[in-house]
C-alpha cells in the first residue's frame, strides 16, 4: 500500500486544472526548487469570483495533488472565500497527508493566496478592475 490515500494518488495521476494560462489576472508562485517544490497558481477573476484557475507544480506526489485540490476548491469561489481556504481544507479534502508531507498543503494554500494578492495589487495599481 502506498503512503498516500487513494484520493491523493487520483489527483496526482489525473490532476485537475493543470497547465499555464494566457494573460491571467493574478499569479502566485511559491516554493523553492532547492527544497524540491515550486507551485504556480494562475487565476482569472470575474465579478469578484475566481472564474478560471490553473496550476503548475514542480514537486512530489503530495505537491501535485494538493495543487490540484486547491484549484478545485477555489474555482467559482469569491476572493474572500478563496482567501479563507487553508492547508487544512486541502488535506482534509484529500483524505489526509503523511505528516512529513503536510507542508505541501501549506504551499498550495500559499500559492492561491499569493495569486489573489497579486490580482488585488494589480487592480489597486490600475485603479480599476482588469477587463474580464
Amino acid at each position, binding site marked *: 500500500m*502506498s503512503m498516500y490515500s487513494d484520493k491523493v*494518488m487520483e489527483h*496526482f*495521476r489525473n*490532476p485537475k486544472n*493543470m*497547465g*499555464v494560462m494566457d494573460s491571467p489576472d493574478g499569479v*502566485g*508562485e*511559491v*516554493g*523553492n*526548487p*532547492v*527544497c*524540491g*517544490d*515550486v*507551485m*504556480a497558481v494562475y487565476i482569472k477573476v470575474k465579478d469578484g469570483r475566481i472564474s478560471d484557475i490553473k496550476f*503548475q*507544480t*514542480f*514537486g*512530489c*506526489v*503530495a*505537491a*501535485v495533488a494538493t495543487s490540484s485540490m486547491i484549484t478545485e476548491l477555489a474555482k467559482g469561489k469569491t476572493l474572500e472565500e478563496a482567501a479563507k481556504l487553508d492547508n487544512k481544507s486541502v488535506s482534509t479534502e484529500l483524505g489526509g497527508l503523511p505528516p*512529513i508531507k503536510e*507542508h505541501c498543503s*501549506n*504551499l498550495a494554500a*500559499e*500559492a492561491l493566496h*499569493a495569486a489573489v494578492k497579486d490580482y488585488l495589487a494589480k487592480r489597486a495599481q490600475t485603479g480599476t478592475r482588469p477587463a474580464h
Partner: protein
Amino acid sequence: MAYAYLDNSATTMTDPEAVKAMLPYFTESYGNPSSLHSFGTEAREAVEKARAQVARLVGAKPGEIVFTSGGTESDNLALRGAAGAGKPGANRIVTSNVEHPAVLETCKSLEARGARTDYLRIDRDGFVSPVDAARIVSERTAIVSVMLANNEIGTIQPVQEVAVECRARARNALVHTDAVQAAGKIPVDVERLGVDLLSLASHKFHGPKGVGALFVREGVRLSPAMTGGGHEKGLRSGTENVPGIVGMGKAAEIARENLGEDAARMTRLRDRLIDGLLPVEETFLNGSREKRLPNNANLRFLGIEGESLVLLLDGEGVAASTGSACSSKKLQASHVLLALGIPEWQAHGSLRLTLSRFTTDEEVSRAVDATKGAVSRLRAMSPVWKKIKAGEPVIGVKGGGHEHV
C-alpha cells in the same frame, strides 16, 4: 501486467534455487548447529558448506567468514569491533562522505564516544583519492572504511590503492570495505583488494533477506557485536539463521559461477538504459560512465522531482528509485548526489535504475519508454521546466516561506 523491476540495488528477487536449498532447513533439518545430535550435525554441516561458498565468492578462507543479519550489521561489527579492539590512543576513523548510512551513522555514534572521523571527499566523478587517504591516515587510525561500489551511483572506488597507502602509513589500522553492492556484479577478492574486513549482504545478490557476512582476515581482532553463547568465533553470538545462511551460500555459489556472463549481460542492458535516456533533453548521468557497476544507471532530468517520477513509473509498471529529498524521511536530497557537486534542485530530479541477472531486454525497453513519457508529463506541469526552457534563472523564485524541518 508485465512489470519491470529495476530497483535491484534496494533488493533482489531471491533465486528460486536458493529458496529450494533453504526449505529443508525449516521443516526437516531444523536442528541447532550447536547441538550434538544428528539434527545439530546436519545443520552445522549446512552452515559450514555455506561458509565455504561465501568465502569462495570473495577469495577468502571459510574460517574468515562471520555470518551476520545483513550488510548493516556487518558494517557495524567492522567499525564498532575495530574501534573497540584498537590500541589505546588509536581512536580515529577514516571514511568517505558517500558511504552507506550503515557506515556514516555508525561513525557518528562512535564519535559520541570519543572517536574522531575524517571524511575523504569525492571528486566530480564520484571517486575518493588514495593520495587523500595517505595524507589523513596515521598511527592513530583504528580503521579505514571505503566502500567498494556506491549504492546510488555505482562508482567503483580505488579500494586496493587506498589499502596500499594505509598499510604504508598505519601498520595497525584495519582496512574495511563495504562490498554489499559490488558482490555478484564485479569480481571481489579480499587478497587483491588487500582489506582486513569486507561486508556482504545476501539479499543484494539473490539470497534471502536477514542474512549477511563479514570477512574478518585471519589474525584480525575485533570486539564482538553481540555477546552470548560465543557463536561465530565469539564475534556474533546467537543461534545461526540456518535457512538464511544456506540460502546465502547457494546464492553466492550461483553468483560466482555466473559472474562473467551476468556482468556482460547487465553491462549491455545498463548501456541500453543510459543510451536510451541520455538523449532526452537536459538529462545527465550521475557518476562516472566508466568505473561503474554493470547494473547501475543513475540519471537526472532537470525540472522534475524524483518521487513523482518514481510513482508515475510505478503506475506504468516500472519499479525504480530516486535520490530526491521528497522521497526521504529527512526531506534532504541524497548526500551522494550533493557530494558530487550536483546542485540540490537538480538532485531532486534523479532516477536510479538498477538491474539484476534476471533483467530482460523487454524490461529495459519498457523502462526507457515509460521514463521518457513520465518525464515529459511531469515537465509539462513544471514551472521550473518552463523557466529552463525560457532561459530564466531557476533559483531565486519569489515567495517561498515554508520551512523544511
